[in-house]
């Protein structure tokens, strides 16, 4: 099991400095809203690609009134022994740009992808509560994060696709008569588009298989039916990758005037959706009650954590922000059981320490007040 045994922060959000020794498989942070609980989870969420669980700018994470830099460091203990991971924002260089720093065991790492060898992260935050009723864009972002947790190169693939799509939209807008240029760009769009769609399909297929295997009709976290919806997803599902690329390229070429009028590219992974159904009730997740949707989402995230564990060999560290408050005691107990079965470390936050009273024995409870964290148990 990989556990964070120590978390140190300097000039991060509300913490001028923090040195927290943990080590238990379950860590609960209780404290009033605004005390800085989520900041702790956010600091841990920086040990993967991307901008953390708030998707904030790094410059916004530096403590107000500080010098604009910050650092976060973890000591983790896993199968491979202890490792020290560090990240943060450096002081601006002479060009005025501050840089994200990543270090593993004291040595500079080229990118946050290097953390993936030692720690995998899965998180659930309250802003995902509206996921099933929200926009397809939010579900795509959620899905891409699921893919990224098992396939570290997905982030580069998605940004390359975004750049190719923006290039295509720009040429359509400014120079639509330049067919040779559009042909060239559409090859890139097709290559990355099919790669992104295929990576998503693989993760969804594996996740759906895992859900089918571990399905328990009596669980308070209902199982989810998953499917990808989109024209490119249909192509990728029915054709070998090379043929899917050709077919997608054909659709792009045929859709130029339509896309030009729309001001964007209408077919591709950027237009796909992750369809989620409430399995036991066999209804669209968006039609389930608010409580059922929350339970469904928790079930999905737990399944994903199992998938990450199975595929990477590293049981992920799970970050659950403000989760216990929405669960009745029966669901809370079931959550603690599921988390224990996962075999990874869990960090939870909640306003009321009572929420954590029924946690298992190998848990630590901390009380969070602005800038300070004190162990309660």
């Amino acid at each position, binding site marked *: 099991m990989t556990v964070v045994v120590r978390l140190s922060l300097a000039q991060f959000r509300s913490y001028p400095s923090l040195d927290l020794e943990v080590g238990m498989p379950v860590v609960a942070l209780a404290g009033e809203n605004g005390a800085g609980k989520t900041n702790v989870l956010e600091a841990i969420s920086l040990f993967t690609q991307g901008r953390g669980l708030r998707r904030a700018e790094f410059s916004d994470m530096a403590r107000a009134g500080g010098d604009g830099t910050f650092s976060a460091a973890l000591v983790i203990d896993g199968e491979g022994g202890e490792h020290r991971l560090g990240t943060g924002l450096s002081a601006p260089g002479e060009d005025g740009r501050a840089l994200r720093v990543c270090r593993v065991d004291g040595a500079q790492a080229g990118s946050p992808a290097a953390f993936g060898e030692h720690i995998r992260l899965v998180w659930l935050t309250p802003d995902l509560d509206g996921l099933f009723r929200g926009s397809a864009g939010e579900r795509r972002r959620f899905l891409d994060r699921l893919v990224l947790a098992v396939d570290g190169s997905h982030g580069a693939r998605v940004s390359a696709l975004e750049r190719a799509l923006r*290039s295509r939209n720009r040429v359509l807008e400014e120079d639509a008569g330049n067919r040779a240029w559009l*042909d060239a760009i559409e090859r890139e769009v097709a290559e990355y588009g099919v790669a992104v769609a295929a990576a998503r399909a693989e993760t969804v297929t594996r996740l759906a298989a895992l859900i089918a295997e571990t399905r328990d009709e009596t669980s308070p976290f209902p199982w989810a039916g998953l499917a990808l919806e989109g024209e490119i997803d249909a192509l990728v599902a029915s054709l070998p990758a090379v043929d899917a690329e050709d077919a997608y390229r054909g659709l792009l070429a045929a859709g130029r005037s339509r896309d030009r009028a729309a001001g964007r590219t209408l077919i591709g992974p950027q237009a796909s959706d992750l369809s989620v159904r409430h399995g036991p009730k066999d209804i669209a997740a968006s039609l389930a009650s608010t409580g059922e949707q929350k339970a469904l989402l928790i079930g999905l995230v737990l399944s994903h954590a199992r998938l990450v564990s199975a595929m990477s060999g590293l049981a992920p560290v799970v970050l659950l922000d403000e989760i216990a408050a929405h669960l009745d005691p029966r669901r809370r107990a079931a959550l603690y059981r599921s988390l224990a079965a996962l075999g990874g470390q869990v960090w939870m936050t909640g306003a009321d320490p009572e929420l954590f009273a029924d946690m298992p024995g190998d848990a630590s409870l901390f009380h969070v007040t602005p800038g300070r964290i004190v162990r309660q148990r």
Partner: protein
Amino acid sequence: MADPAGPEIQRLIQLLARLPGLGPRSARRAALHLIKRRDQLMGPLADALAVANERVVSCSCCGNVDTTDPCTICRDARRDPSIIVVVEDVSDLWALERAGAVPGRYHVLGGVLSALDGIRPEDLAIPRLVERASAPDMREVILALNATVDGQTTAHYLTDALAGLPVKVTRLAHGVPVGGELDYLDEGTLSAAMRQRTTF
């Protein structure tokens, strides 16, 4: 606060600060370093700059920079005249030369297509490339472009532009990392990518 140095030295610092990789702080250090070593460094550097400024020209054949036109590489009779290696920039040409991996001559495009940065086909040395590739003894055009979206879009564009000619169009093997810039690759990686080049 008054400037500690006179306007001539200030001007030197300002110009040095415009060099890539140098900011105001390192420019001040560099200026001071030059002043302290006038005879060994500042004088020879000033002479070298004056000569370079007077004599450096862009090669009218390949776009390389040199003090002769055509450049030393284009005039080198030992190089295979039937192979052209297309690069984005002179810095990539230098990287490939350091690796000693190129059997033929070069063609410097002067950038890559980038709709987002406003670099259009007519901004690049493409017609001249097509003209050179149309020469009767030409056999192969190797596209040594960076594995970025813009670099590969340019590679596709050039492949289409050269499609009617009786030359083989190849590109560097996928040993070149995505987003990797040739200039930053080590020489072994570059030689391997050149040896294992593939057709589209």
